[in-house]
Every structure is written in structure tokens, then in C-alpha cells.
């Protein structure tokens, strides 16, 4: 028999539903707002007339402009490059390192773990990090371009190899590898498998879910990265290697009036046009995330459930 619901329970339930529905709607609202603004009349966009649905005559000029803008697609391809190569690079050294760290027989294991975890506690800071990237750029220029000016090399490569580090992801991988039963490894070893074979044939297939999660964390942070890419490319004055986030921010800054830097005499667009185009860029830059998001969503619980960052 169904138990009768008490009044306090009912009230709690109603509050819960109302709160959650409002919160969920608020989370989606800005995206709908951007989408509507992208297709709304330019004047309506410039005058902040959009509230929910597109206002005025639907226009596709903003989308058309973005689709045909070579600068935008150059930056987009830069981001694709940085995301793909950068994610693979981060995954390779993280998996190798995490595998070694997961082995009890590794001498100095606690020392190496501390080496890793310490970077989560203390960081040198923005200025030292920037000085470090600059000297990295100089060294790379010396090796690959024969000069000491970091503008002479394609800074995409610097972004790929030197950024996107995340100790938490390595700890996640290490915990996953530690969870693989050692009997399987021993069996493989008796069959004559080498260390690398054990990693690729036993450990990686058995930790697929965690590796997928970590790959997505790396990938999304690469796709969304702004600050360091902006600093490094800005210092070298190299706009051809801008990722899409940097390009988008630059466009928004000078063409929408949102950051107070709009000059109607020098801007290429009216505020309405510029803002509408900016929203179109926002939507285009979000598409890859929105496409993979439903597929990765089920892995999240695994990703955040770290089981403690024990050493």
C-alpha cells in the first residue's frame, strides 16, 4: 500500500521541483538568447530588444558573415589543431606517467607523487609563468628558426606542448590503473608481454571510461582556453595563430560595444551588426561542445568521483 505523503514532504517536493526547473531554465537561457540574437534584426540586437525569441525580420547575414569570414575559420582551425594535437600530447604523457605511478614497485613513488601533487598546492603565478613561456618560445625559436624571437615560430606548437597541464587528471588515471587487478598483469607477464604491451593491451582497455573522461576534460580545456594563448600570441604579435576564443574576444571587444571599447568611426560594423555577428561566432564556437556533450554526460559521475587524492 502506498504511504500517505505528509504535508512537510509535499512542500519540500514542490520547492525542489520549482527550484530545479527555474535553475535548469536559467542555465539554458543564455544559449537561447545568443541563438535568437544571431537571427534577429540588427537594430533590435543593437538596442537590446531581444528577450527570448528573435525580434523583427529573421536575417541570416550574421551567420553568412561568420561562415565566409576567413579570419574566423583560420582561428577555428587553429583551435581544432590545438585541441586535437594538444589532447593527444597531454593524454600520452599522462597515461605513461600515471601507469608508472600506479606501480607499487616503483622506487621513489611517493616522491614522484609529491612532485605532481605539489603543483596543485603552489603555483609560481601569472608573471613567472609568462616569463617561462617567453623563454620557452625563445628556445623553440633558437632550435627551429635559428633566431631568438618567438614570433618566428608558429606559436600553436608552443600552446600545444607547454599548456593544458592538469595534475588532477593524472591522479584520476593513476587511481583507475591502481584499480586494475594485479593478477591480470601477472598473467600477461607470464605470457611474455612487455611493459608497454601490458599497458596498451591490459590497462588501457580496462580503464576506457576513465581515459575517455580525462580525454574530454583535456579536450574541453583546450577548446575553451583563452588567457595563456592570448598572452603568448599577444606578446609575439602573432594573430595568425590565434585560437577561436582569442579571435572571438577581440571581435567582441571592438565591434559590439560590450566592453566599452567601441568607436563608431573606426569600427567595421554598427553595434547591431557587430553584436549579431558576435553571437553567431559564439554559437559556432559552441557547436562542437554541444555535439559531444550528450555523449560524454554519462561519464561525469565517474570523472568527479576521485575517491580521494591519496598518495
Amino acid at each position, binding site marked *: 500500500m502506498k504511504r500517505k505523503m505528509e504535508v*512537510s514532504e509535499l512542500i519540500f517536493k514542490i520547492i*525542489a521541483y520549482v527550484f530545479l526547473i527555474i535553475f535548469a531554465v536559467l542555465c539554458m537561457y543564455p544559449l537561447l538568447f*545568443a541563438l535568437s540574437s544571431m537571427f534577429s534584426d540588427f537594430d533590435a540586437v*543593437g538596442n537590446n530588444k531581444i528577450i527570448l525569441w528573435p525580434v523583427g525580420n529573421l536575417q541570416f547575414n550574421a551567420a553568412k558573415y561568420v561562415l565566409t569570414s576567413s579570419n574566423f575559420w583560420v582561428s577555428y582551425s587553429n583551435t581544432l589543431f590545438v585541441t586535437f594535437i594538444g589532447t593527444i600530447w597531454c593524454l600520452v604523457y599522462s597515461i605513461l606517467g600515471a601507469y608508472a605511478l600506479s606501480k607499487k614497485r616503483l622506487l621513489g613513488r611517493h616522491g614522484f607523487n609529491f612532485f605532481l601533487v605539489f603543483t596543485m598546492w603552489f603555483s609560481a603565478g601569472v608573471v613567472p609563468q609568462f616569463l617561462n613561456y617567453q623563454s620557452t618560445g625563445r628556445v623553440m625559436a633558437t632550435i627551429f628558426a635559428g633566431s631568438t624571437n618567438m614570433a618566428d615560430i608558429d606559436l600553436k606548437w608552443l600552446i600545444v606542448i607547454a599548456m593544458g597541464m592538469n595534475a588532477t587528471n593524472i591522479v584520476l588515471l593513476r587511481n583507475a590503473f591502481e584499480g586494475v587487478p594485479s593478477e591480470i598483469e601477472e598473467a600477461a607477464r607470464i605470457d611474455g608481454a612487455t611493459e608497454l604491451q601490458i*599497458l596498451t593491451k591490459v590497462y588501457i582497455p580496462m580503464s576506457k571510461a576513465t581515459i575517455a573522461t580525462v580525454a574530454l576534460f583535456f579536450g574541453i580545456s583546450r577548446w575553451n582556453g583563452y588567457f595563456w594563448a592570448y598572452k603568448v600570441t599577444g606578446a609575439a604579435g602573432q594573430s595568425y595563430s590565434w585560437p577561436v576564443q582569442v579571435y572571438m574576444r577581440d571581435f567582441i571587444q571592438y565591434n559590439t560595444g560590450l566592453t566599452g571599447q567601441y568607436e563608431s568611426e573606426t569600427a567595421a560594423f554598427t553595434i547591431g551588426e557587430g*553584436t549579431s555577428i*558576435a553571437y553567431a561566432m559564439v554559437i559556432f564556437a559552441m557547436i562542437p561542445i554541444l555535439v559531444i556533450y550528450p555523449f560524454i554526460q554519462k561519464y561525469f559521475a565517474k570523472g568527479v568521483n576521485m575517491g580521494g587524492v591519496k598518495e
Partner: protein
Amino acid sequence: MFKLKCDDFLIYDEATGKYTMSAEQQVRDETERNKWKSTGFTILKDWRLYLMLVPMLLVYLLWKYAPMTELTGAFRYGDFQYVSDRPWAGIENFRNIYFGANSESFWMAFRNTFIIAFYGLLFGFPTPIILALFFNEVKSNIARSIMQVCVYLPKFISTVIVTSLTLALFSGNKAGGDVGVISKFLGAISGSEMLHDRLAGGLVYTVEYFRAIYIVTDIWEHAGYDSIVFFAAVIAVSPTSYEAAQIDGAGKMAQMRYVVLPSILSTVVIMLIMKIGGLLSVGYEKLYLLCPSSTYNNYTVATVVSTWANAMGSYTTQAYGIAGEMTNNLIGMILVIGANTISRKAADVSLY
């Protein structure tokens, strides 16, 4: 005659009055002497394992630890381009930012860091827990999944997009025409035209509203995703516990108080440690995008130590920036270690 008590490793010879080493001790010494050999042998045998470690160590050494060598710049005058060329200054730079010419802006940034971090913790920490408790009330799996998909999403939107949308929704009427949607809404509920006048550059650029906007958008970004871990803890509570509480006559609130909260406490403590640990590393990317330079009106409330140091980027002022951020990060590190130690002692829960 006095005789040493050392039977376990030396043997006393009565006749000669001399000590000789026991056989066991000789073996022990031998093993000790050869220990490095066996260590070396283990490393040699597992050389592939150590080789696998190398790329990771190298990456962390080059781009996480090498920047720390630039910290010596905090103790040098900022005259030359390269930190290593600069003459030593002792604690001159620290004196400058604590008490001297730059002290006002440094303490402003430091205070802002604390205030933003504190409000972020005060309002940002309970929200995901509340969300998780509420999700537990939604018994329909489909409805809950849809809501969860919606609330997790903002976490994956880039900072550039989040800040641009924030600026747009809270924007003013500089271009003529209306103000942004939320500005409009706030104007309507406060019922004052005065609010509209003040919005020339947008609410984000006002001293009064900046902090509230920052905290609210931060919650919007992170609360949903952060609720995952609490929700996992809440659904782990066994249904029999609820039934037992109901039989004892516990209402909804009593069940929350005596059944759910004790079960999720350890998760809450761990997450709190993590939050306190990251307290002073407030998101500089977002703050930088919302207040890129000192010309903005919200400069006095939006500048945190990282963005302040970033603004001190030129060669002459770099030293102050490095010194200031080093202070901030050292305090942050003490906070992590302190929070961890306290929780280990008090609740037997620790992260590291």
C-alpha cells in the same frame, strides 16, 4: 668492569676483554652495504617503467617548476629584461608592496581576492548540495536526466562566451535604446529610473554590483556540475534508513537532519577542503575578461592579486607583481595544508 649491553650485535670475549661482531650483524652490515646494488638492480630491471615517467616529469619540470625559478625576481630590482640579469634587492620589493608606494593597490587586490573567495565559498558551496538534495526528490529518471543535462552544461562553456553573455545580459544603454535583459529586469523590480541612468557602461562595470554578478555567474557556471559528487553521495543513502526514520516518526526535515546529512558529511568535508585549498586561486581568466585594465570603473572591486600582478607586467614593475603573487600563493598553500590537517585530526577525512 663496566660491560656494554649490546648482545644483539656484539659478542664480548671474557678472556681478551674485547668485543667482536656477531655473525648476524655481519650479514646485516653486508646487506646494508649492498643495498644500493639491489636498488640499482631493481631500477635497471624496471627501466621501462622509469622511462615512461620521463615525459611527464619533463613537462612538469619545464612548465610548472621552471617558472618557480623566476620567483627570484621577487628579490631583485626590475631593471633588465631577464630575471637572472637583475641585481639583488633583498626584501625591497616586499617592503614596497606591503608598506611602500604600491601598498595601496596591492592590499586592494589582496582584499578583493579574499572577499571574492569568501563570498564564493559562502554562496557557491551550499548551492550544489541543495541541488543534489533536490535532485533526490525528483523520482522520475527522465525528468531528472533532462534537468541534469541542463545544469551541467554551463561548466563546459568557455570563459570568453560566459563573460560576453554576462556583459550582454547586464549591459547598459550606451548605444541608445534599451539596457540588457537582466538590467531591465532589475530596473523593473526596483522600479527606479535611477538604476537605468547608472547603467551607461553596464552593471558589470559598476562598483556596487560587480561582486554580486561575479558570484551569481560563478554559481551559474559551476553549481550544477559540482552537484554531481554530492548527488552520488545522496543516492548512496540506503532506503531502509529513510524507512526506519519514518517509522520513528521523522518528518521530512528530521530525515534530512538525521539521515541524509550524516551520510554525506564526509563528502562535504572533502569538497570543503578542496574549495578552501583553491580559495585564493580565484579564476583570473574570468576576472581579467570582466576587468581588463585599470581604466574600467569596476577596477577597485574586480582586481585580484593575479590580475594585479598581470597588470604589472612591464620589466620595471614585474618584481612587485612576482612578490605580490608569491605572497598570495604561499598563503593559499598554507590554507590547503592547514585545512587538510584540521580535517584529518577532527573528522579523520583527508585528501592528501
